[in-house]
C-alpha cells in the first residue's frame, strides 16, 4: 500500500449555534497516493471542505490521525506543513502586486532574492501569466486571479496542492478551460492534487480517483469510470449522474441474469454475479442505457412520455412506465428528425440490455 498521505478514522464534530453538534467527519479513512489527482466530491455540508481544512492544518481532528509518509501531522501547525491551498475565493492579498503575491511564501521563508525572482518568474510562466507581475489582483479577471493563486502555491513546491472548489466562481467556458489546464499542470509538476468540488462533471473529467463523500463518510473511492458505471450505493448512483433506480427482490437466477421483482410487481432482467435468489437488490439504469429502439435480445419497458426537455445536443424524456414510476431517458437529438413524435403523450418502448444495468445492495428495499 502506498503510504503517502494517510487519513485514518478522522472524526470531527462541530457545535451548532442551537447547542447541538454535527459530525462533519465520521470515521473517514482515506489513503491518498503520491502524484495523483484525487477529487473529494459531495454535496455541500458533506464534510469535504472540513477534511481539506484538517489536511491543511486549519482545523484539528477530534479523533484519528493524518500522516504524511508515515509521520503524524497532528502537532504541525498549518504554516509548517508542506501543503499549499488554492482557496475558493483565491484569497489573493489585495495590497500586493501579482509578483509580490507569488513571492509571498518565498519572502516569509527568507529565500534569497535572486532565486526568489527566478522561481516567481517560472511559476508565473507555468500558469501563463508572464508579464502580469506588476498588476494588482483587482486588475485581473477571475480566471487570471485563479492562476495567480495556483502559481502562488506551486512556487513553494509543496508535496500536496489542496484546491478548495477553485473553479466555482468562474463562468462555464472559463471553468472548462481551467479544468484542462489544471489537469495538465498536475501532470507536469508531478505532485498530488486534492481537489474539492461539488460538481460531478468536474470531478469525473479531471481526476485519477474520486472520493464521494456524504454526511461525513466516504461513500466510494474509485476511478471516475468505476464511480459512474459501478456506483457502490444508492447515494453515489443518484449523486453522480442521473439514475433510474428500481428496488426489488431477486426471484430467479439464470446464469448471470437475475430477475428482479419490485414491490409494485414489475419484473426486470438484470446481470450480476453478486446476488442470489431471495436477496434484496437495486438495479441502476442510466438514462443513456434506455433506448427508444432496440435489438432482439434487449428487454423492453412500455411507457408514455410525460415531459420532454430539449437541452441542445439531446432530448431528456420523462417517461411514465406505469406502476407509479417515471424513468428518465436521454435521446440523441438529430436535426431534421421528427421530434414531435416524442412530445408529451407519445407512447414509447424503452429497450435496455441486462448487462447495462448495474445491481447494488439496497438499504431498506
Amino acid at each position: 500500500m502506498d503510504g503517502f498521505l494517510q487519513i485514518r478514522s478522522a472524526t470531527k464534530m462541530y457545535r451548532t449555534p442551537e447547542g447541538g453538534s454535527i459530525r462533519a467527519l465520521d470515521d473517514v479513512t482515506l489513503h491518498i497516493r503520491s502524484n495523483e489527482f484525487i477529487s473529494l466530491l459531495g454535496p455541500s455540508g458533506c464534510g469535504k471542505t472540513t477534511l481539506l481544512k484538517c489536511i491543511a492544518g486549519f482545523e484539528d481532528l477530534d479523533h484519528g490521525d493524518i500522516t504524511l509518509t508515515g509521520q503524524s501531522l497532528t502537532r504541525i501547525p498549518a504554516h509548517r506543513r508542506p501543503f499549499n491551498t488554492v482557496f475558493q475565493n483565491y484569497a489573493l492579498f489585495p495590497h500586493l502586486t501579482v509578483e509580490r503575491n507569488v513571492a509571498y511564501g518565498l519572502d516569509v521563508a527568507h529565500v534569497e532574492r535572486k532565486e526568489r525572482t527566478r522561481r516567481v518568474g517560472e511559476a508565473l510562466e507555468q500558469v501563463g501569466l508572464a508579464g502580469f507581475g506588476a498588476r494588482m489582483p483587482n486588475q485581473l479577471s477571475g480566471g487570471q486571479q485563479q492562476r495567480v493563486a495556483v502559481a502562488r502555491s506551486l512556487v513553494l513546491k509543496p508535496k500536496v496542492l489542496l484546491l478548495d472548489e477553485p473553479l466555482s466562481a468562474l463562468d462555464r467556458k472559463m471553468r472548462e478551460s481551467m479544468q484542462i489546464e489544471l489537469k495538465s499542470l498536475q501532470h507536469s509538476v508531478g505532485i498530488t492534487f486534492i481537489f474539492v468540488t461539488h460538481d460531478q462533471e468536474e470531478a469525473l473529467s479531471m481526476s485519477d480517483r474520486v472520493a464521494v463523500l456524504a454526511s461525513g463518510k466516504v461513500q466510494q473511492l474509485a476511478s471516475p469510470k468505476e464511480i459512474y458505471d459501478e456506483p457502490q450505493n444508492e447515494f453515489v448512483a443518484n449523486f453522480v449522474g442521473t439514475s433510474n433506480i428500481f428496488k426489488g427482490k431477486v426471484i430467479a437466477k439464470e446464469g448471470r441474469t437475475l430477475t428482479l421483482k419490485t414491490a409494485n410487481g414489475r419484473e426486470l432482467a438484470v446481470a450480476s454475479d453478486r446476488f442470489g435468489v431471495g436477496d434484496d437488490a437495486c438495479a441502476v439504469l442510466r438514462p443513456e442505457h434506455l433506448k427508444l429502439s432496440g435489438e432482439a435480445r434487449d428487454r423492453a419497458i412500455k411507457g408514455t412520455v410525460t415531459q420532454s426537455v430539449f437541452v441542445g445536443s439531446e432530448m431528456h424524456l420523462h417517461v411514465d412506465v406505469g406502476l407509479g414510476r417515471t424513468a428518465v431517458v436521454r435521446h440523441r437529438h438529430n436535426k431534421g428528425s421528427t421530434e414531435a413524435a416524442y412530445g408529451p403523450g407519445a407512447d414509447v418502448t424503452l429497450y435496455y440490455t441486462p448487462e447495462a444495468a448495474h445491481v447494488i445492495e439496497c438499504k431498506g428495499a
Partner: protein
Amino acid sequence: MAETGATASRNRRTLILLLAPLTILLGVFFLIPLGIMVVYSFLEPGLYGGVEWNWYPYNYGRLIGWPLNDYEVFDPIYLKIFLNSLQIALMTVAGTLLLSYPAAFWVASMKGPRKSLVLFLVALPFFANMLVRIYAWLLLLRPTGFLSTLLESTGLIIEPLDLLFTNFSVIVGMVYVLTPFMFLPIYANVEKLDYSLVRASRDLGATNVQTLWRIILPLTAPGIIGGSVIVFIPALGNFIVPSLLGGSKVQMTGNLIERSFLQSRDWPFGAALALLIMAFVVVLFSLQFSRQSKSEGQGTR
C-alpha cells in the same frame, strides 16, 4: 466537547493573549468602579467628605424628598430637578430630530463629489470641542451678545434681550452639541432607503403625506430610534451645558451630581443620583438591544 488539538490550543492561547489587556482594563477601571459606586450609594456620607461604612438607604429617600429627620419637611426638590432634566432631554431629542430628519434626506438626495463635500461639512462640527461649541452659544445668546445686538440695531427690540439661563438656552445648546448624534444614524438609514418602494407607494395611489407616514417613516424608524437613544442619554446626564448656558437658574441632575462630589462632598448621594441616570441608560439600551436582535432574528429566517 473538549478540543484537544494543537490548532485549537494555539488558537486559545492567542485569543487569551489578545483579549487580556482590554478585559483587565475594563474589569479594573470600569466594572469595579461602577460596582463601588453602587456600594457607595448605600453608605452614609462622612462629615468631611468620604463615607462611613453604615447601611444608609436614605440617599435614595432624599431623591424623592423623604425628610431625613424631624427638622426637615417632605420636599421633592431633587425629584423636580430630575423631572426638569427629563423634560430638557426629551425636548433636545425632539429638537435634534426635527433638524436632522429633513437634513438627512437633503444630503441623501445629492450625488457625487457634492454629496461627499456636504457630508464632510456636516460631520466636521462633530469633532469640534464641546466647550467651544457651547461657548459659541454664550456669545450668541447673552444680553450683550450677537443676537441681542443684532436685533437692537434693527430696532426690533429696545432693551437688551437676555436669552441665557433659561430652559430654552440649555435646550438650544444641547441640540447644537448633540445634533450629529441624531443626524448620523438617521442618515445611515435614509441613505439605504429603497426609493423604488416610495415610487411603488405613489404608483399605488398614495399621496405624499400617506407615503411619508406609511412607508418612509416606518422604514427609517430604526435610525430615528437609535438616534433618539444616543441623544437622550448624554442629554439627561449633561452638566456642562446647563452650568454654562443655564447658570444657577436651570438645574439638571448632572449639576447635582457634580456638586455632590466637588462641593458638598456628599459622595453617596451623588452616587445614588448617578445610578438613577444609569437606570434609564440600562433600560433604554436593553430595549434597543432586544429590538435589534429581534429584527436580526427575523432577517435570518
